[in-house]
């Protein structure tokens, strides 16, 4: 489908030197008027280009406030926001927001506009002409798995909740913004559809490589989606900011441990792929082996082995590169395991 989601389209400041850091928050602080404490205490954070960062934390800890300071829907009390090497703390907020995709839990599709008009909103704000917007809208609907011919002329209320949020994602991507901020986008969707949307969105992100800041209070969603997870404590204080595997294997403190909950070691198996397990090469061992492709997670492989009563795993590969692991070897490797490259 589309390959126009390059990094080329909308550099906020083309004059700035190439910078690996896409979003940089410096001493970012928010105290709402009339409050006696900071909702966000000074926060420093760097998010790399193309990185998918998830904010998690208990209700009221300031995730939304922090997120909304990035696109300046909330004006920081003090501190600085840098996007793509440019200080945007005091630039025109409307212009800034046209280059940051925004997705919210309530979706917020405009009910009296058709799906195609909704998706075309930001391009229209940016002054694209109609001839450019129309194919772009179709391309985006395709991208999020909605048949343009069928959906483009519908109104939002003629779509299911899951379909509406697909349109919400398409709308945020319409002008190919380099950065997306998403506030619990799948929070109001039933668990089965949510999983599907998560899977699809992960696949989509592998192609479009946006820099994403994603808020959730579901730690499982965070572990599944994030390249790195920021676990927030009171007033947006960072308890830990690390990869899912790191958080599961080396929680920074008891707060993180309790936030992650039980079963960290088991859940880690869902982050590992059998193809990445080290050790054990060729040779077939004793007993029947279960054959799986290398991208299978260790978790899923174990599940299948238990089901099939298999004590060995055969991992598909190039001829000659197939591997076979015993249950013992798998567990040992998993304990040392690396994270799945995303």
């Amino acid at each position, binding site marked *: 489908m589309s390959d126009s989601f390059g990094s080329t389209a909308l550099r906020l400041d083309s004059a700035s030197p190439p910078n690996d850091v896409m979003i940089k928050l410096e001493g970012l602080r928010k105290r709402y008027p009339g409050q006696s404490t900071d909702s966000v205490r000074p926060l420093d954070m760097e998010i790399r280009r193309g990185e998918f960062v998830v904010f998690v934390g208990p209700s009221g800890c300031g995730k939304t406030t922090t997120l909304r300071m990035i*696109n300046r*829907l909330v004006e920081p009390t003090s501190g600085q926001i840098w996007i793509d090497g440019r200080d945007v703390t005091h630039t025109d907020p*409307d*212009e*800034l*927001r*046209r*280059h940051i995709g*925004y997705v*919210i839990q*309530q*979706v*917020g*599709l*405009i*009910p*009296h*506009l*058709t799906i195609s008009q909704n998706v075309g*909103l*930001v391009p229209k*704000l940016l002054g694209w002409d109609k001839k450019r917007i129309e194919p772009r809208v179709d391309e985006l609907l395709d991208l999020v798995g909605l048949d343009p011919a069928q959906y483009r*002329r*519908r*109104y*939002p*209320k*003629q779509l299911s909740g899951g379909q509406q949020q697909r349109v919400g994602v398409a*709308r945020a991507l319409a002008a190919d913004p380099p950065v997306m901020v998403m506030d619990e986008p799948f929070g109001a969707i039933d668990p089965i559809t949510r999983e599907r949307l998560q899977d699809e969105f992960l696949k989509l992100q592998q192609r479009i490589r946006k820099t994403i800041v994603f808020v959730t209070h579901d730690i499982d969603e965070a572990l599944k989606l994030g390249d790195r997870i920021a676990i927030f404590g009171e007033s947006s204080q960072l308890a830990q900011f690390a990869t899912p595997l790191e958080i599961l294997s080396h929680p920074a403190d008891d707060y993180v441990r309790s936030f992650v909950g039980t079963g960290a070691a088991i859940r880690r198996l869902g982050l590992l792929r059998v193809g990445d397990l080290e050790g054990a090469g060729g040779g077939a061992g004793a007993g029947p082996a279960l054959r799986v492709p290398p991208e299978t997670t260790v978790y899923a492989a174990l599940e299948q082995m238990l089901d099939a009563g298999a004590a060995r795993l055969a991992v598909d590969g190039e001829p000659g590169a197939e591997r076979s692991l015993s249950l013992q070897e798998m567990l040992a490797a998993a304990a040392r395991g690396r994270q799945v490259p995303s």
Partner: protein
Amino acid sequence: MSRAEGVIDVEAEAPVASWVLPVLAVVLTAGMLGYLQVASLDSIEQRVLVPDAILDATIQHINLVVASTLLVIVIAVPLGILLSRRRARWLGAPVLALANAGQAIPSIGVLVLLAILVGVGFSMAVVALVIYALLPVLRNTMVGLQQVDRSLIDAGRGMGMSARQVLTTIELPLAVPVMLAGIRVALILNVGVAALATYTNAGGLGTFIESGIVFNRMPILLTGSVLTIALALIVDWLAGLAENKLRPRGL
């Protein structure tokens, strides 16, 4: 916006017996005219109930209603928008209270008071009608804007719309149904109150009601009241049609 085939029609609602009102108006008017034909009218009745005079009074009445309602819209809609902006929101309650007072005063009181203070005639009657019918339009404009889902406004701002663009593309279209309902109420109110304009020499169908009472003649009284009722029914019907037509699709 043209309609494509295969698109589910959002406005599936049936027009709720929209023919009842006009049919009723026609039946009432026809009945009254028939009665005037068969009844033997005395000299006073014959002098008052000249067809030309009836037509003139009806047109005057319509003019009063249309002029005052247009003025109400021109004043109340922008005022309502202004009062629902964040910076002026604190003014909303006192202004609404004032408009409320305008409507609480008996309409005949407003008319007479204005007649005493400023004089009589068509424009004075219009001013009185405007004062009287301002409230429903003002209130509905404010309520209509306030009931717009906050998350839509948030989404709009989040996409980079300016406050003005949010107002014109999101808030106002979504407030239209409520605003139209207010305008419809104002129209109906005005048809009724305009019947009192006769007391300030502004004419209208109230003239017949007044002389019917003064001369104690049932046919004259009947003409005035039946025509006023028929006019109210027609106006309500037309307003309903306009409401359906102007309501944004997709809601």
